[in-house]
């Protein structure tokens, strides 16, 4: 096994050129070191990027808010631009682990681990984030839903580094909400996590949920219903329909499929209800 400590993006990309499926990037280590501990991961190459300053930034650009993959949850919590443009990310970061974890856990690590229970990922889904990848072969950009492809699986090639994510500018009048139901009030993995954005009259809804399928997903059926102008009275039914259709929750050591389905429905009704118009007023 080889370990390379990179202090710049170029150095990291150079080291990654020889990476295989078994190689790993070490950022905050809060996922990777746990995998080492359990013996689940035995990489051939580890590229340490924990102190690549170029990966740790928040920038307001033409395309929106660009956040470096090396930004920690603590960085997200302290950033005024994030609070303005990507409030869902800050709300999610607050729910990650506890202070020591937040000091280390990075946005890039959360995204690349792609755990179905990840808290930052649904926030990125609801924000319509794009993921910027770099390798010696060049750069590319993917929509976050295209990036997360399955259970702990992403579209990243072994030689690629996630550089940043870009959050499009916030549309006027967009409602946003984040809700996590975990095993306890801190240091807790989500049983159900919801992040959503909803434009006026249900337009452009992005409703993301975690821990209800093998990967984070969007509730397309519900989004479509909202876009058609859903009345408040019909919300519960539409939510139940969408949850039945779009999610695939399972029983595991943290909760049951039945609970996850029921709670996802109730949380969605609770969060969306006040924003919908009663029958008659709806378009």
């Amino acid at each position: 096994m080889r370990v390379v400590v990179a202090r710049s993006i170029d150095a990291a990309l150079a080291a990654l050129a020889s990476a295989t499926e078994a190689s790993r990037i070490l950022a905050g280590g809060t996922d990777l070191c746990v995998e080492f501990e359990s013996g689940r991961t035995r990489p051939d190459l580890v590229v340490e990027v924990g102190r690549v300053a170029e990966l740790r930034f928040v920038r307001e650009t033409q395309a929106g808010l660009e956040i470096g993959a090396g930004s920690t949850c603590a960085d997200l919590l302290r950033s005024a631009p994030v609070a303005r443009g990507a409030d869902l990310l800050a709300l999610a970061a607050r729910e990650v682990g506890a202070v020591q974890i937040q000091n280390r856990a990075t946005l890039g690590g959360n995204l690349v681990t792609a755990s179905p229970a990840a808290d930052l990922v649904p926030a990125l889904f609801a924000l319509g984030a794009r993921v910027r990848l770099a390798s010696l072969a060049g750069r590319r950009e993917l929509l976050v839903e295209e990036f997360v492809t399955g259970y702990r699986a992403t579209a990243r090639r072994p030689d690629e580094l996630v550089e940043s994510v870009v959050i499009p500018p916030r549309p006027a009048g967009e409602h946003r909400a984040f809700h996590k139901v975990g095993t306890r009030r801190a240091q807790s993995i989500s049983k159900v996590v919801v992040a959503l954005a909803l434009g006026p009259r249900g337009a452009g809804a992005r409703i993301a949920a975690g821990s209800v399928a093998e990967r984070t997903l969007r509730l397309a059926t519900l989004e479509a219903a909202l876009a058609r102008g859903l009345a408040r009275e019909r919300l519960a039914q539409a939510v139940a329909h969408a949850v039945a259709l779009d999610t695939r929750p399972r029983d595991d050591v943290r909760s049951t499929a039945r609970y996850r389905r029921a709670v996802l429905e109730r949380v969605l009704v609770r969060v969306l209800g006040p924003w919908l118009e009663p029958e008659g007023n709806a378009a």
Partner: protein
Amino acid sequence: MERYIGRDLARPDGPAKVEGRAVYVADLDVPGAWVGGVVRSTVARGLLLGLDFDPGFDWRTVAVATAADVPGENVVALIADDQPLLVAREIEHWGEPLALVAAPDELQLARALAAVRPRIEARAACFDLERSPRVFKSIRVAQGDAGAVFRDVPPGARVVEGTYRTDSQEQLYVETQGFVAFPPASDGSVTVRGSLQCPHYVQKALARALGIAPEEARVVQLATGGGFGGKEDYPSVLACHAALLARVARRPVRLILGRHEDLAVTPKRHPARVRVRAAFAADGTGLALEADVLFDGGAYTTLSPVVLSRGVLHASGPYRWPAAEIRGSVVATNHVPYGAFRGFGAPQTCLAIERLMDRAARELGIHPFELRLRNALRPGDTTVTGQRLEHSVGSLEVLEAIARRTGFDRHAWGAPHAESGPRRRGLGFSFFFHGAGFTGSGEELLRGRVSLALLPDGRVEVLAGSTEIGQGTQALFTAIAAEALGADAADVVLATPDTARVPDSGPTVASRTCMVVGGVLAAAAAELRQRVGDGAASWRERARAFLAGGGDGAVTRAYAPPPGARWDEHSYRGDAYPVYGWAADVAEVFVDEDTGEVDVARLWTAVDVGRALQPRLVTGQIEGGALQAVGWAHREVVSARDGRCEQDRLATCIVPTTLDAPRFDVTLVEVPYPGGPFGAKGVGELPMDGGAPAVLSAIEDATGIHPAQVPATPERILDLLVARAEEAHA
């Protein structure tokens, strides 16, 4: 005028702990030590046909021990001697030790462990306590003719019944279990150092397993990072394993469990199913009680008979029952053996009786506080074993204190809620007692001893086998000794629990350290004080003069049972415990009806401690125990699949954090116990009993559902809420 009693003394163990200097087993520097590991069964029941050793591994680089290498008897000596140290043929639970390996370092150890391949023939296993083919122990407590009352219910009386279940619970001491064992000395004697509660239990187990005399086994306690009962019986297993490895490896061996292994194989709280029914007169007076207590003991006897005993003896709750019949059994399954955990059987039955009292209050239309008050045991009353309560019966005092502090007696418990929205507030109540010290004649049989030795400089060394596991033994013993000697706290030194030096004071369990061992210590100190004599000079001056004059500065005292105590082990009649601690809890919860999540915001508790020798310590015990109870009530899930613990990581084994813990409000009530040192009685376990029923009662107040299982997880609460909504709909 008392100098040390009722005033907080600085903890002698405090400075080392806050500076990171305290030495726990993992901190011990043992040059040349190898690391030990255990090959474990991967089935819950089966036959071990053999152990294959991968020929590709160089076995000369490690040391291996199997059942054939046990020099003494292949048993973990405790109550029944049915548990082998290493499986010879029959496998009874997942993770059962099959072989031991020691290696120079972790890497080599891991390779060696992976190179041992047990050949196992799996057998059908039993995991359902209600279908167990084997009973470890049954107990019956009876008074009057309860059957007659239920057969022929008096006019106007009402029968209330319920079945309550409690799941297991993990102690979760933050320091995992571990030992360092040293190879046998030239005279055959063996030394182990480790994390433990009961040095003399370990000593006996080592002697049996190694075939040596108890005096040849030396057990030394290191700083111990929590126990809560979890380090009562299991250290005997681990110490024997470590000692065996040190013997075959001929060098010191460190055997420290990783967290996963500790969670997977060490004993936890007994799961239970308790059926109760009670008959009440229309005014709420209890007429008769019947309880059927069933505990899952797991694969071996371990401490189960005594756990069951305490469970059965607390099934009545702190109430008067003119007629009662309580039957209990602990049965065998193929779960990892269950063992001691704070409360020791009582929390399970306390939950059942307290839930039943809430249900009865609802059905009788009597306020739950009023119902408890009406039936509370008072001084002069007799318990279901026929024990007449004479001393230190603080039942009414704690009820009065909790009412004063919370106003629960005026709270409209269970009334429909006016508020709307998913977040519901509720208050819940519990009233409970806990026998202090060993059950029945336990203390008399044990006769725990304490010695004092006058040192040449006039200081007094306390030699006791009681361990400091965080509860404050050292501060407590210093205060008791200094007070009883009439000396300064600085004149008292405490010997490390080391079986080579300290007498057997009995195990550090059963809320007995302060009351029983502390009492023996006070008596020994009083005797030494009498020998040395009082005077104007300082203690050290007088003590030195006494020694110079040829005085004998060594005192040993043993426990003397209170005069008139009687107990019949066969009929379970008589004085079940020397005395009881009494307490009442009120919990405030907020239940989210959308998610079933419960936030326990506050917990008030009023506790009769006899006398608070060290108020800060006893408050710390109460708060710590109460949080364990609250965690068990609704959050701490422990389950097994095919006999294997599912929560074998801290990421899945959930206990409360600072944000989950309620704010505590502790009221200490003091009704002195003449049989204890300066009026104190044991309360280490008491706070574990009442938290769960109080929280479930509060959930009922908030939502109208009647949770009947602990933990009342969000999943379970939501199921009950959905069922209720469907009922209302139908």
